[in-house]
């Protein structure tokens, strides 16, 4: 069942299947929603070497090395991850590849799990690398194989662009066979050593390649015309194509672009000539629209459709003046249900302590970003991977002793390995009396439990190298390194006070594995002794989802509580019992 016949498959899993069938031998990625499952699923094939790299730049460079050595290679990341890996990408465009190399980038329109809504197509345009964009799982599988053929034929890395709705939707695919092409490594300094003299010769190659790729886009099946009358013509791609067909069926003409960089010229002009009114329906920025306008064609796009947020069938129907029906409503205000730190989350006790100490907390990217939401409301800044530490240094250089005594950076173990180390190097080198807290929960949590260089296990869960955080931090020149258990509020409070007080840089490692990890053994759920509980709500200050009030007394949800005991340290009446 798994490998043959029609089956429902997640878009990301279909990419992984495509990687298997394309004969990919090497995959290196850093997790990031909505791209993570591609690499996780690929790792289930024994024929493919897969790894989690410390960050996207390392992953992409590792994949480049594998291509150079003569085997098809791949890396995947979310949109902001491609910013981190932009450096190798832009110059790989010049070197080209040996064996095919494909780079997946997953955008997140609607920001389901992201800090911005950037449009990755700009990276394709700016790096002059071709980009293809599947609209469902079947295309995800087929385009992945095609991407390697394009990569080798045109001597270029190829970008596959996914979005949340394609990555995290299941649709029907039919898997095929695996074939492994092999290439020999050949020394070629003029092609692979990008110093000025060589790069200068490669740039014209890149420009010529773009024109050849454009010609490919004019005629290849990857761009498809569906004729449906001469009145309305819609140019679209990806999930927007699905919404257009959902709304219009076969009643309008559609040009579906599977290759979004470079964009065709003749194909678009011919399509425009066949219809009276031309529209572009694309999520995020008006990239196809601006291209169409640059051809001197009259077209409507962002005048009627938003730049912000993701689309849906109703949104498009309304934009085209069609009526949509809405469902039912109750009168009551429905309270929101924002995501929260899980019951037993080791971050909770640490954030509570920071709040009690009235610390200014500069945050980072991970589950612990939830330290910014009520009732903890502790994190005051989150920008991008690693920024907590670098920004703390700048904040303290300007603020001096006044901020040094009450400001901390918080960063997870995986995020620290990703790009926190370089910020800490700056603190050690340019010396601010900064206090950095590494929230070491022994896993990459937010993206769904991926291993990282500090956990001691690889992507398959087998034993691997393990970086010792204490030794690493000390080797970087930070003399003061403390380890605390975030379930122990008294210890956290004492150590945070001590480290903020000293006049030198320090690192506190708050160490306790993620409560959701399978190997973590929990105490049984706590119970509230209603005789002792006075309803003071002191225990509710930590924002645990397992604690609520019924009839003036605390109730513990036995299906959620893992007995971490943080709340018991807040109860003066001993009402919360194990």
């Amino acid at each position, binding site marked *: 069942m798994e490998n043959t016949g029609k089956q429902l498959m997640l878009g990301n899993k279909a990419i992984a299947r495509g990687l298997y069938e394309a004969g990919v031998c090497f995959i290196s990625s850093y997790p990031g929603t*909505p791209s993570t499952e591609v690499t996780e699923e690929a790792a289930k094939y024994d024929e493919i070497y897969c790894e989690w790299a410390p960050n996207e730049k390392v992953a992409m460079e590792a994949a480049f090395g594998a291509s150079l050595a003569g085997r098809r290679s791949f890396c995947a990341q979310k949109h902001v991850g491609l910013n981190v890996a932009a450096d190798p990408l832009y110059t790989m465009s010049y070197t080209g590849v040996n064996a095919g190399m494909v780079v997946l980038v997953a955008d997140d329109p609607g920001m389901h*799990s992201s800090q911005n809504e950037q449009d990755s197509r700009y990276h394709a345009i700016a790096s002059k690398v071709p980009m293809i964009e599947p609209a469902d799982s079947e295309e995800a599988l087929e385009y992945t194989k095609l991407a390697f053929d394009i990569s080798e034929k045109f001597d270029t890395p190829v970008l596959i662009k996914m979005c949340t709705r394609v990555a995290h939707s299941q649709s029907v695919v039919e898997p095929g066979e695996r074939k492994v092409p092999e290439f020999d490594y050949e020394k070629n300094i003029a092609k692979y050593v990008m110093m000025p003299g060589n790069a200068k010769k490669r740039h014209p190659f890149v420009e010529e390649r773009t024109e050849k790729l454009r010609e490919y886009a004019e005629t290849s099946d990857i761009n498809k015309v569906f004729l449906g009358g001469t009145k309305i013509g819609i140019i679209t791609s990806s999930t927007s194509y699905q919404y257009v067909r959902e709304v219009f069926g076969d009643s309008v003409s559609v040009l579906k672009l599977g290759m979004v960089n470079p964009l065709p010229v003749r194909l678009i002009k011919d399509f425009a000539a066949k219809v009276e009114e031309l529209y572009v329906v694309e999520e995020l920025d008006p990239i196809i629209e601006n291209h169409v306008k640059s051809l001197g064609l009259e077209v409507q796009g962002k005048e009627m459709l938003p730049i912000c947020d993701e689309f849906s*069938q109703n949104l498009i129907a309304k934009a085209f003046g069609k009526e949509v029906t809405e469902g039912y409503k109750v009168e009551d205000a429905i*309270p929101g*249900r924002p995501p*929260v730190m899980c019951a037993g989350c080791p971050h909770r006790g640490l954030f509570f302590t920071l709040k009690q100490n009235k610390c200014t907390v500069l945050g980072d990217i991970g589950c612990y970003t939830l330290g910014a939401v009520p009732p903890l409301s502790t994190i005051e800044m989150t920008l991008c991977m690693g920024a907590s530490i670098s920004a703390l240094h700048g904040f303290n250089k300007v603020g001096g002793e006044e901020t040094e005594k009450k400001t901390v950076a918080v960063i997870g173990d995986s995020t620290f390995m990703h790009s926190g180390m370089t910020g800490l190097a700056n603190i050690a080198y340019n010396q601010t009396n900064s206090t950095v807290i590494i929230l070491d929960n022994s896993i990459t949590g937010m993206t*769904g439990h991926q291993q990282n260089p500090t956990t001691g296990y690889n992507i398959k869960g087998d034993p691997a190298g393990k970086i010792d955080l204490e030794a690493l931090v000390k080797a970087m020149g930070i003399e003061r390194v403390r380890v605390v258990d975030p379930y122990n509020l008294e210890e956290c409070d004492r150590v945070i006070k001590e480290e903020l007080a000293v006049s030198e840089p320090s690192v506190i490692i708050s160490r306790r594995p993620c409560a959701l990890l399978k190997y973590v053994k929990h105490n049984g759920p706590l119970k509230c002794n209603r005789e002792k509980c006075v309803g003071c709500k002191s225990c509710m200050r930590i924002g645990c989802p397992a*604690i609520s009030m019924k009839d003036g007394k605390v109730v513990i949800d036995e299906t959620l509580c893992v007995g971490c005991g943080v709340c018991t340290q807040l109860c003066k009446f001993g009402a919360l019992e194990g």
Partner: protein
Amino acid sequence: METKNIMIVGVGGQGSLLASKILGHLLLSQGYDVKVSEVHGMSQRGGSVVTYVRYGDKVYSPVIDKGEADFIVSFEILEAARWLEFLKKDGQIVTNTQQIDPMPVITGAAEYPADLAKKIKDAGAKIDAIDCLSVAKEAGSAKAVNIVLLGRLSHYFDIPEEAWMASLEANVPAKFLEMNKKAFELGKHSA
């Protein structure tokens, strides 16, 4: 056949992904084109989550929009109310009556509305409300709320029970199969 829409709504961590997997598998086995759209990442952490299951001759959009859902399968009553706008006229809600306080209620910033099942009914929607947690516990695990709901949902479908069982078998670990089959049966006949 025109595309049919099932929304599965609940609180992150309640097991809605497994429910959608079983449904998707089932509907594909019945010869339909199927799309299932899931939620991963940040919103899974105890937040309001929604999964879309669509099936028919040819399914385009992976998502369900307001006024389109033939069924809303809800793991928690507040979530049924939250997504009510997505129910089609004459659509059916199948919901667990369980209440899970969201953080704004826990912190006292908001109140959990009372009598939601009745209010949903008064709004004109068809609602089938069951205490799935009790039924699941009777079957042997509080975690089987998802299967209890599927059992109840099966009551509204003209699909043979063997096909539902086959999908359960294909998607549930063998050691939990008997318990889940029991949860399905109890759910199907609860009202």
